[in-house]
């Protein structure tokens, strides 16, 4: 049957048709053959009967007249029928009268016992007994026996024919059926092909082609309709699947989000967290948990909670209690727990556990461990601090009052109570002003509206108050100094005023002494300041003297090298030729050159004179500068600076001029970039002193540099309410580490420097309300010193 199941519908159909045809044909053939056999048998019986009767008829006379020979002759006529095996004639009394035996038979025919009138089919034989009657008188019996070869050969023929017909009709049926079954299988195969396309390609848009209007047509229509519905549903499904996918994606994202959130939360919390299921297996925990309990890395994956707890229980001071609590909680899964664990290493943990519920079903437990060692410690510390503070407050020399927003005493320390002659408890809740601040020092009433403490309650400003008195319980008063400041509670909202007061009876006296001491001290410091200033002045004078020295050296050198000696030689030569001066000048080769030489010498000497004069002027200026310094020193000594109205640019030019010799000598180019500024009221000498110092420093920096193009730029500019003088050189520069130290007293990088110039310049700049800054990109990159001073243009009275 399974084989049949596998065969295609085409083959099945052919098979069914063939089978049907075959069976029908077989039945028909069987019927025909049976019919033929029956007919033939009847015919055979009839034939043989006829023969027997003929024999009977013909042999009656032989019997009547006892002529077996004649009977035998009659019987031998049966030879014409080859099927007849044998025959015999019996007399009336059963004696065999005559016998016929088919000659070709191997076994001789032996007559059976006589019967009267009988037809017997048996043993492939047809036997017939027929009576011999003559004129109504029975004479004997004839017996004829025939084999069934005729029947068999006929049957054989029938079977052959049947087989032939069967084969031929089978062929025809096969051809017809294979042609005709296409009417059925064709549409089915189309349907199958379509169905297969649908199955394989998942393409629901294909349609089977309808070929007929019969049931198959209806089936194909139904199939197509079904496909259409499926397609529609498919589209719907896809749509909803897409929606679902999007929802799932969104959900997944949410879940992932919340998971990562949970994970992050888990990891970010300072608590050690552990989740277990009802079987006591660890489902989740964070790093902190591992860390807190010092769980070795290699056993992290051991998820048996019980084992884990047992293994960490030795960390706890009381392991039995620790484990018993766990056991107890797992016996009562819906309980929450909170306890504090003390560890052997001194740490203190809070252990909190809560059952985890999913839809009213307990699925586990979440444990959180919080290391409260620090908290404990700080609590203890706080407590200690509190005690200390109160001890401090209690032992403080000052009295302290805390007034609430209404001015009522909320707290006071014992010192305050003692100073005022009260018990602590007596003062709490009393209005402060009316209790101890009701009357002024001079005995007049002190209205609460004037009270600084109450004012502080209003405006929340800190006030230091001196020269007031507080009144004791006994009506006496004492001088106090107090500070009142607003106080805020832990939430930051205003909570009243704290008044810290001191009995200044003693300190008043001390103050007097202190004032005296202070005056003395000021004097001393003044002198110390003077010394510093003197050093500064001397330095400045020294600097200028340097210039003076240089100038004088220059002049003396100039004079020493002077061509004046040459003039003497010329004079000597002229004297030598005084007699024939004219001839000498016109004919002597030397004399001829003399006028030109003299002209040249005169020109040279004039140049020398000019240079000496210039140098001398510089010398004069320097000396003037020294004079100025001295004047300034005198004025500084008077502490009040001389305010003059000057043009800043003039001041700068002065400073440059003071150094011009040195600058020229060292081949330093000076560039001036001046913005136009109005005349200003400044302490001229102080600024000049700074500028001289800066220019000189710049020159030194250039000196030490190997740079060929030595250059100093002085820039004057205004910057909002300041003006700026920048002295910029391209000299040796300043190392970064020295930038911060450069203004320190005594710092210098020069061998003969004393480290005072920049220090005093800086101090002076600050004194003038400005600043001196430095900038350098490092060694070899030059430096810029920037002096900034307040911009104070002179206001002429006319304006």
């Amino acid at each position, binding site marked *: 049957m399974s084989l049949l199941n596998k065969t295609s519908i085409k083959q099945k159909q052919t098979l069914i048709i063939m089978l049907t045809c075959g069976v029908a044909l077989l039945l028909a053939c069987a019927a025909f053959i049976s019919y033929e056999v029956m007919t033939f048998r009847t015919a055979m019986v009839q034939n043989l009967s006829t023969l027997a009767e003929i024999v009977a*008829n013909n042999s*009656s006379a032989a019997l*009547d*007249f006892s002529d077996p020979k004649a009977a035998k002759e009659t019987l031998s006529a049966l030879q014409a029928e080859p099927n007849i095996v044998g025959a015999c004639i019996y007399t009336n009394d059963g*004696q065999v009268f005559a016998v016929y035996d088919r000659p070709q038979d191997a076994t001789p025919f032996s007559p059976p016992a006589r019967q009267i009138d009988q037809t017997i089919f048996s043993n492939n034989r047809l036997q017939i007994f027929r009576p011999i009657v003559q004129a109504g008188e029975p004479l004997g019996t004839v017996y004829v026996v025939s084999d069934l070869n005729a029947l068999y050969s006929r049957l054989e023929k029938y079977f052959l024919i049947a087989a032939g017909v069967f084969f031929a009709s089978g062929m025809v049926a096969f051809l017809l059926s294979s042609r005709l079954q296409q009417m059925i299988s064709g549409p089915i195969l189309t349907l199958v092909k379509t169905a297969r396309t649908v199955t394989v390609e998942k393409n629901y848009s294909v349609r089977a082609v309808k070929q007929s209007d019969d049931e198959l047509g209806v089936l194909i229509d139904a199939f197509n309709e079904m496909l259409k519905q499926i397609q529609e549903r498919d589209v719907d499904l896809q749509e909803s699947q897409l929606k679902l996918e999007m929802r799932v994606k969104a959900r997944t994202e949410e879940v992932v989000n919340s998971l990562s959130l949970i994970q992050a939360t888990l990891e970010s919390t300072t608590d050690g967290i552990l989740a277990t299921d009802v079987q006591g297996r660890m489902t989740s925990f964070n790093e902190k948990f591992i860390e807190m309990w010092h769980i070795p890395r290699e056993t992290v994956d051991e998820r048996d909670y019980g084992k884990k707890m047992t293994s960490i229980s030795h960390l706890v001071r009381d392991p039995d209690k620790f484990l018993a609590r766990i056991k107890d909680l797992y016996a009562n899964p819906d309980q929450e727990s909170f306890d504090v664990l003390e560890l052997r290493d001194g740490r203190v943990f809070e252990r909190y556990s809560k059952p985890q519920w999913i839809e009213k079903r307990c699925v586990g437990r979440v444990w959180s461990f919080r290391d409260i060692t620090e908290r404990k410690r700080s609590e203890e510390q706080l407590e200690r601090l509190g005690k200390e503070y109160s001890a401090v407050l209690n032992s403080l020399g000052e009295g302290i009052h805390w007034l609430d927003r209404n001015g009522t005493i909320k707290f006071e320390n014992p010192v305050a109570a003692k100073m005022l002659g009260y018990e602590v408890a007596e003062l709490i809740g009393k209005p402060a002003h009316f209790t101890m601040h009701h009357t002024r020092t001079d005995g007049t009433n002190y209205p609460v509206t004037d009270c600084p403490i109450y004012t502080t309650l209003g405006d929340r400003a800190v006030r230091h108050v001196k020269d007031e008195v507080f009144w004791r319980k006994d009506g006496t008063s004492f001088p106090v100094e107090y500070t009142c400041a607003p106080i805020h509670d832990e939430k930051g909202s205003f909570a009243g005023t704290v008044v810290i007061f001191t009995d200044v009876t003693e300190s008043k006296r001390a103050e007097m002494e202190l004032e005296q001491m202070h005056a003395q001290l000021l004097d001393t410091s003044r002198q110390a300041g003077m010394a510093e200033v003197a050093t500064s002045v001397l330095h400045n004078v020294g600097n200028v003297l340097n210039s003076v020295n240089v100038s004088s050296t220059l002049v003396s050198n100039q004079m020493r090298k002077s061509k004046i000696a040459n003039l003497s030689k010329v004079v000597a030569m002229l004297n030598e030729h005084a007699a024939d001066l004219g001839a000498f000048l016109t004919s002597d080769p030397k004399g001829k050159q003399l006028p030109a030489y003299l002209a040249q010498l005169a020109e040279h000497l004039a140049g020398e004179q000019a240079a000496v004069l210039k140098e001398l002027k510089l010398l004069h200026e320097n000396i003037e500068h020294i004079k100025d310094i001295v004047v300034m020193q005198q004025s500084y000594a008077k502490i009040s600076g001389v305010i003059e109205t000057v043009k800043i640019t003039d001041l700068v030019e002065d400073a440059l001029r003071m150094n011009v010799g040195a600058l020229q000598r060292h081949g330093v180019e000076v560039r001036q970039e001046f913005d136009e500024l109005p005349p200003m009221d400044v302490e001229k000498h102080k600024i000049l002193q700074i500028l001289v110092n800066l220019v000189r420093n710049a020159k030194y920096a250039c000196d030490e540099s190997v740079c060929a193009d030595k250059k100093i730029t002085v820039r004057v500019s205004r910057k909002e309410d300041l003006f700026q003088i920048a002295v910029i050189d391209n000299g040796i520069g300043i190392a970064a580490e020295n930038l911060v130290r450069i203004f320190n007293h005594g710092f210098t990088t020069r061998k003969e420097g004393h480290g005072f110039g920049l220090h005093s310049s800086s101090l002076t700049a600050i004194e003038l309300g400005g600043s001196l800054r430095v900038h350098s990109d490092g060694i070899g990159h030059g430096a810029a010193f920037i002096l900034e001073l307040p911009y104070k243009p002179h206001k002429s009275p006319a304006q």
Partner: protein
Amino acid sequence: MFVRMVGLMIFLLASHLAKAQPTMSEYQVKALFLLNFIKYVDWPAVAMPGANAPLVIGIMGKDNFNDYLTNAIDGRSVKGRAIVIKHLALNDAPGGCAILFISSSATASLGKILANTGTEPVLTVGEDETFLDKGGIINFKLDQGKIRLEINLKAAQKANLQISSKLLNLADTVKE
């Protein structure tokens, strides 16, 4: 056992009977033959007066049948007719007889007798070699102890008798 014994007895009896037949005497056989002739010979209607009239067998000459013929008849009828035996004298007209047996004792007067029958529908039966030549119809001939028949078909036709071909087939000699 009993059945076997009965079977055996029947067998013995049957074989005895079978052996008994050839022992029949000559005239016993001839008597049967005479009677049997009736079945193979058709007489014209004139020879058979009534439907129920007996068929007469006439015997001429010496009757050697003794009682054989009478015994053979034994009251039975052939072709629906009773059979009567009639002894005739040599001179008697055979009219009224269907069969006329002429004994060998009458051989001398055979010619005369047969002439008397003339064209009468009488089946003449004899036992003499010359019987057929003399106009007899059927002659009994003794051949090796067996009785054979000789038939003169011409004489039969003359007597207006129809002799069955079956009988003719048995005859040794058929004279036409």
